[in-house]
């Protein structure tokens, strides 16, 4: 048994990007690391069989999403959704970026896991609706529906509604 060709290079090149995506899904680094490690561990036995050049990215992405959604269905994850968010940030606040990040993190946690997955794939990884559907194993229609519901929910969050209406403050 030996590590399949390209696996180590892939992990080195892509683990940070995968971790960032996983952070959006899970909301904390410990779970994000669990998720990425599990996805990579599941991917590598079949690594040598991946032929097309873009296959590793798409394959690991899909495994990561499947794993994430399966974890969320387990009760022991103990996720508690909350509608409460930190207080509004004053404009020009030097720590505004950090606060806005926390707002965003908690806002994402108010979404359902599937909605969060769609948002991460569409808006962070910038995948097309078709590729998002492929990663989640659902229809393009379902992607559109989840995305629309997620955006509606995020727009209702006071701290985000301005940003989503007017763009990111520079």
């Amino acid at each position, binding site marked *: 048994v030996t590590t399949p060709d390209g696996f180590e290079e892939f992990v080195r090149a892509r683990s940070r990007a995968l971790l960032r995506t996983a952070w959006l899904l899970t909301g904390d*680094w410990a779970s994000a690391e669990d998720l990425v490690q599990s996805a990579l*561990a599941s991917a590598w036995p079949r690594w040598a069989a991946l032929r097309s050049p*873009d296959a590793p990215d798409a394959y690991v992405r899909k495994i990561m999403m499947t794993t994430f959604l399966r974890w969320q269905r387990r009760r022991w994850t103990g996720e508690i959704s909350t509608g409460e968010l930190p207080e509004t940030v004053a404009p020009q606040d030097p720590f505004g970026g950090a606060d806005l*990040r926390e707002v965003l993190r908690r806002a994402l946690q108010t979404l359902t896991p599937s909605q969060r997955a769609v948002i991460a794939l569409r808006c962070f990884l910038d995948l097309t609706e078709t590729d998002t559907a492929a990663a989640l194993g659902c229809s393009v229609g379902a992607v559109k529906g989840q995305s629309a519901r997620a*955006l509606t929910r*995020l727009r209702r969050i006071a701290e985000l509604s301005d940003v989503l209406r007017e763009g990111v403050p520079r």
Partner: protein
Amino acid sequence: MNPTEQRLSELLHQLTPEPPNAISPDALSAGLPKPVASRHQGWRGWMPAAAAAAVVAIAVVSTGLVVASRDHQSPAPAGQQQPRPTTSASASTVVPPSVAASPSGQTAKTTCQTQSLKLDRTKSEGTAGSTYVTYYLTNIGSITCTMYGFPGVSFLDASGNVIQHPADRDGHANARFDVAPGQRAQFVVRTTDPSIPGTGCSPSWVSTQIQVYPPDQTTALRIPDTDRVCNLTVTATKRAS
């Protein structure tokens, strides 16, 4: 993407933090449990059986290597010790031949491997609405290899994320061709002008690197490359003229 999605996308790109630690391939393939306390009850418990078995197998290999190099200086981490392929204490027999043997003697006329290729960019050529850039893959190995089909091309931002999506394929594959040592294969990447209405692209999509998987390879080459990125297409590889 509608405007709200667009703004959320900007927000996510801007605010998603960099991870405190990258994942080390060595720690991963050694199957070491993570030291970080977590809500989950240890990731190994949730691995599919095949993956778990595979990780144990790798752990055996790396334990062998550790023994070979360190000669009992430190005890192997817990959880790696159970299945040994041999009872012999000799470290060299623990290392499977596939690891010990060097991959020399590669037969002639195999597909060009990533490690024997070098990627270069040429100047871009603009036409109305599109920019075309030719890239070369030079055979820096010592034997003639062959190439057939499309490369996998993505442009990456400063964080290493793919901008928009990997390039779509344009046209048909050419016949398989030889690339002798020092010879080059070429392919052309087209990008659309993002200021044209209806492209769905942002003028802020500017790459810092291009990532190219040569045809049939799972390892990519990357070189610095600052280009606008919008609805990319890529041609099949062919022998460079």
